[in-house]
């Protein structure tokens, strides 16, 4: 990873620079026009979120059962990224919802799920920071349970909203005219965000490792 890091950063930066150009070249969606363009980054953020949740949950389980320090650092990095992507996704989603449905927030299943996942992983970060000695293990439990509860939250919110349908109905993106170029742009953005996720995970894991190393050095210096 260390050797590939710099080239990948360059690649990621180039992809992010090109993404707006690609999005500008896509045709307007027939009903939502300009606002639909937020979709390219919006969906891509959810892809990054999915990856980050999985990484955090699985790394937490590994840490809990064999105490691997690498897994612990990956867990922190994953949890922080989940919060970042969730917040970004909710903001971009709100903008879109305002334009498409006329409301900022509609308790749509996906919105509800994003909100609760945000709470779960903010909980992860809080317990890690303020949990006192052994807080890493508490946080790891939160990571595992957070990953496990995600599908339940989605299913529950889905039934809650669709059994009694209310004003807003989930709009599906029509991809009839100019569909191919729109979908290729969507995929381009998803790959860009996934690459970003991996890079940030790597950088954040390294930062956590250096922090521990620094603490050890301080302790060693005090003993002298």
């Amino acid at each position, binding site marked *: 990873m260390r050797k590939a890091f710099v080239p990948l950063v360059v690649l990621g930066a180039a992809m992010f620079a090109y993404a707006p150009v690609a999005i500008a070249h896509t045709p307007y969606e027939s009903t939502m026009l300009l606002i639909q363009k937020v979709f390219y980054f919006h969906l891509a953020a959810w892809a990054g979120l999915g990856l980050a949740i999985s990484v955090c949950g699985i790394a937490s389980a590994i840490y809990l059962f064999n105490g691997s320090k690498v897994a612990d650092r990956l867990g922190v990095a994953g949890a922080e990224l989940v919060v970042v992507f969730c917040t970004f996704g909710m903001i971009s989603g709100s903008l879109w919802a305002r334009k498409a449905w006329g409301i900022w927030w509609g308790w749509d299943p996906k919105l509800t799920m994003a909100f609760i996942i945000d709470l779960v992983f903010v909980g992860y970060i809080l317990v890690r920071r303020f949990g006192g000695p052994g807080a890493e293990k508490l946080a790891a439990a939160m990571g595992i349970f957070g990953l496990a*509860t995600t599908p339940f939250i989605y299913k529950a919110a889905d039934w809650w909203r669709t059994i009694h349908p209310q004003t807003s109905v989930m709009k599906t993106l029509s991809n009839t005219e100019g569909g191919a170029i729109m979908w290729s742009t969507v995929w381009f953005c998803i790959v860009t965000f996934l690459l970003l996720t991996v890079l940030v995970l790597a950088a954040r894991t390294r930062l956590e490792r250096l922090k521990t190393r620094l603490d050890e050095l301080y302790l060693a210096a005090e003993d002298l």
Partner: protein
Amino acid sequence: MFFRTALLVLRKDVAIELRSYEIVSTTVFFALSCVAILSFAFVNEGQAPEGTAAGILWIAIAFSGTLALGRTFERERYGETLKALLLAPAPRPAIYLGKMLGIVALMLATEIVLVPMVNFLFAASLFARPGLLVVILLLGTVGYASVGTLFAAMLVRARTRDVMLPILLYPITVPVIIAGVRGTSALIASPVDDAVAQLWISLLAFFDVVFVTLALWTFEPLMTE
């Protein structure tokens, strides 16, 4: 051996509780205070909007459940008995199961007072399908207590446990709350919506199975220092 250990832990908790009724009585009154506070938010001109009763019932259950969890483990921490319990040559998951059953018993005892009270105050027909109501309450309580017991047990060592327990527990148990509220609403509705209630019961059952399994699996490494 496994179930005998769990039952012994449960018997110990029940015996301590029966001596003073401290947790049961305080939890019941806390739940009733919740109902009172919430009714001020919803009741307008002597009537609560339709379906409010289910929401108020489950909020009261969740809040009083947190209190019962906190008090139960505070008692263990105060006497340093949790350490002794963990040192005992017994399978750790059995200890977890015993503690969880104790919490479930406490929460059910609260619900026995709470449910008729909500039924009476909000003129809701909660007992239209007593069988389904009992199933929803039981499954919801087990789901809530399964995650709650594990988190309360692991937070015993943390200094900030009082505030951390709700922060960690509520987002994880959101599915239980949604399913409980919606399932109970379906029972209150006229005519009673059996199919919807059963749908939510199936979600609750699935949640219970997954989270009890996860908790039994992670209790051992979590409680090992």
